[in-house]
């Protein structure tokens, strides 16, 4: 037992787990970091430097790839390519149940989805943290913006976020590296939007790519962005934030981290006498060998549904319905962002303007609905992410061009097109839930997760307005061939999983307190997306990072005080 005992255990190495590992080890805790997948060291990105002609099949999935990834090749996802398929789980080996359809896209390896994430980094605003309480939706957040703000500063400074200062109440500014540039058509659209629609603003996306060197010297492995736009393969330049390139090297440097890979945590160990969690039970993914590890404090960062699976599977006389589940809310209130709808258009003119380099970022139109004096028949709102660029050679396929004239025509950049997609807020609802199906087991003998969630009335109203407003703005800008699009997408498609172990003030209606600490077991902290009490419409990863760092500080303080 002694050799398996640490000060802290962190379960998972994605966005949240990496931050927990860094913060706990830097504050002197001997920390065991567990991941259910194999090791990926920074730089160990096999396709990162491949040219288009070095990838088989034009980077498209083969029949065999599609057979192994029936979920990950649904229309709402694009990750199963020759250059990135190795980062996503095999759906046949990793099944789940869908009482109602749910898009669950995941990667089991060190770094988790921090390797493949979209990197868009936005703060929640004061109005986001007040909305539930004001409107009587779900439960009130137990914290306010002022509680997180310094932690947003802290993580932005460390990871590097490129963006512009805008003074918007619905989208607080941060500690930014220089903003990336807009293209000429994006500027044109920006000016027309602000001219014709008061209160709406188009800004460059805020992204965790280094547009300039970091403002600190703690991450020598991270270099500025090279504008290859191949981030999802893993960046050998360390130019975007991933656990692999950023937080895990920092944790390793302390000498306080022990990492064990292929370690599937399937249960938390609860000690009735102490009233605490004492450790975790682990299965080796390759051998099935079972091990127990022990620690004073446990950070659950296994991803929203990963953590929820472990907690639901950890039953005892004290917690017959799942670990920490006195409220009955564990597994409920699934949130994601509305995803997959928007519009596109062709933009005439600007033929003599172009760009160089491939920008791993787009424009952002922050939420403007139900902000200030705007009042809608639904609650909350949405933001748009989009971009404008020139069409490539594919435009020539259905033209009469053939032979030498086709080659010549392909050398000219095509017309400009612009498109944008809405990300809408999803309200917490007790009806949207995930449970364990004990009648069906995976290859390790663990019960499968069963998803039962769908968008409700408020989401449907937002989805309609996302399309209406996009069409209206492109039309008002005078663009041509304005059309809407709607990708077939289920809840989950935004890969912004949230809500299944929510924070709140009252242990009767929430799983965690305002410190991401379990109401019912004070030495267990949950800092992945499952803690989210409401979803906002902003990409949530930055908030997970800030809240993880904040929770880690609190955990260390409480350990020192002897409270946990």
């Amino acid at each position: 037992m002694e050799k398996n005992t640490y000060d802290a255990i962190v379960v998972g190495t994605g966005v949240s787990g990496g931050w927990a590992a860094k913060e706990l080890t830097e504050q002197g805790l001997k920390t065991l970091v567990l991941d259910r997948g194999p090791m990926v060291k920074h730089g160990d990105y096999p396709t990162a430097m491949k040219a288009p002609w070095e990838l088989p099949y034009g980077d498209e999935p083969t029949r065999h790839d599609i057979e192994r990834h029936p979920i990950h090749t649904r229309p709402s996802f694009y990750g199963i390519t020759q250059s990135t398929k190795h980062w996503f789980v095999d759906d046949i080996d990793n099944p789940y149940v869908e009482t109602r359809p749910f898009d669950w896209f995941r990667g089991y390896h060190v770094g988790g989805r921090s390797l493949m994430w979209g990197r868009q980094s936005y703060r929640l605003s004061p109005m986001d943290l007040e909305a539930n309480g004001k409107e009587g939706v779900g439960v009130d957040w137990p914290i306010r913006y002022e509680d997180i703000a310094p932690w947003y500063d802290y993580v932005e400074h460390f990871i590097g976020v490129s963006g512009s200062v805008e003074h918007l109440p619905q989208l607080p500014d941060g500690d930014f590296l220089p903003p990336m540039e807009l293209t000429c058509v994006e500027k044109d659209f920006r000016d027309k939007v602000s001219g014709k629609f008061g209160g709406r603003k188009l800004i460059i996306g805020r992204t965790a790519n280094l547009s300039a060197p970091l403002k600190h010297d703690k991450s020598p492995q991270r270099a500025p962005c090279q504008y290859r736009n191949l981030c999802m393969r893993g960046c050998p330049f360390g130019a975007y934030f991933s656990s692999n390139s950023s937080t895990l090297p920092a944790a390793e440097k302390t000498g306080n981290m022990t990492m064990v890979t292929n370690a599937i945590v399937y249960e938390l160990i609860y000690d009735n006498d102490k009233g605490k969690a004492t450790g975790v039970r682990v299965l080796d993914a390759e051998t099935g060998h079972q091990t127990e590890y022990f620690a004073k404090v446990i950070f659950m960062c296994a991803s929203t549904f990963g953590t929820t699976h472990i907690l639901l599977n950890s039953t005892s006389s004290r917690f017959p319905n799942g670990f920490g589940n006195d409220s009955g809310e564990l597994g409920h209130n699934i949130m994601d962002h509305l995803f997959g709808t928007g519009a596109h258009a062709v933009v005439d003119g600007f033929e003599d303007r172009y760009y160089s380099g491939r920008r791993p970022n787009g424009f952002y139109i922050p939420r403007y609905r139900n902000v200030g004096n705007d009042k809608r028949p639904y609650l909350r709102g949405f933001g748009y992410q989009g971009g404008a660029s020139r069409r490539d050679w594919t435009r020539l396929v259905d033209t009469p061009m053939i032979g030498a004239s086709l080659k010549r025509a392909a050398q000219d950049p095509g017309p400009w097109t612009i498109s944008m997609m809405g990300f809408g807020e999803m309200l917490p609802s007790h009806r949207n839930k995930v449970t364990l199906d004990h009648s069906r087991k995976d290859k390790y003998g663990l019960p499968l997760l069963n998803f039962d969630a769908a968008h409700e009335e408020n989401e449907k109203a937002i989805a309609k307005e996302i399309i209406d407003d996009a069409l209206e703005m492109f039309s008002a800008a005078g663009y041509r061939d304005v059309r809407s699009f709607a990708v077939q997408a289920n809840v989950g498609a935004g890969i912004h999983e949230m809500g299944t172990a929510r924070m709140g003030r009252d242990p009767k209606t929430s799983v965690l307190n305002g410190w991401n600490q379990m109401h019912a077991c004070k030495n267990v902290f949950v800092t992945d997306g499952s803690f989210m009490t409401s979803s906002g419409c902003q990409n949530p990863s930055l908030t997970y990072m800030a809240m993880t760092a904040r929770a880690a500080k609190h955990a260390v303080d409480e350990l020192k005080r002897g409270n946990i």
Partner: protein
Amino acid sequence: MNRREWLKSMSALAVGALAAPSLLAVMDAHAAAKAGGPAMQFFSVPQGDVITGVVDIIVPRTDTPGAVDAGVPRFIDQMFKDVYTPEEQKRYLAALAAFDKAGSKPFLQLGAAQRTALVTKLHEEALATGQKLDPVSAPAFVLMTKKLAMSGFFMSQPGCEQVLQYIAVPGAYHGDIPLSKAGNGRAWAVETVLRI
């Protein structure tokens, strides 16, 4: 434009039932695909020769290499072997057979000018027919082969580097510059695609 949307607009380009799982393409071993490389694995030798002949008309060698130089026939072979479904394979082979009967003689027995005339005529016919195009017809074969030839070629090294322009590591981003200042002023081989 994000990739999902871009892929969607790609399939909109495909006429009717011709939409294939992918029209974006390039093969793993362009070098191996050039003359002297291993034989085709999906197509028979005569089928491969017909495809090569058509591909050569669609993207010929000019002052820059053409699709055959870039190994595109082998790319098409690999796509049918491993990517396309059995129905798509069957459809393409049937369209190829129809194409071979569309001229006054089998395609490989035609002279160079006759070959070009036939491919040009069928290509125009395919575009004129539009959505109603029969996927196993001779015009459908030409249009499908055009898409595959362009995909294979414009993602090949000569296509990217000698016809279009490609910089593996740009090192900087300039969002709004005159076309004349954007490298050599040609279209970028890889357009900006936002992946959200």
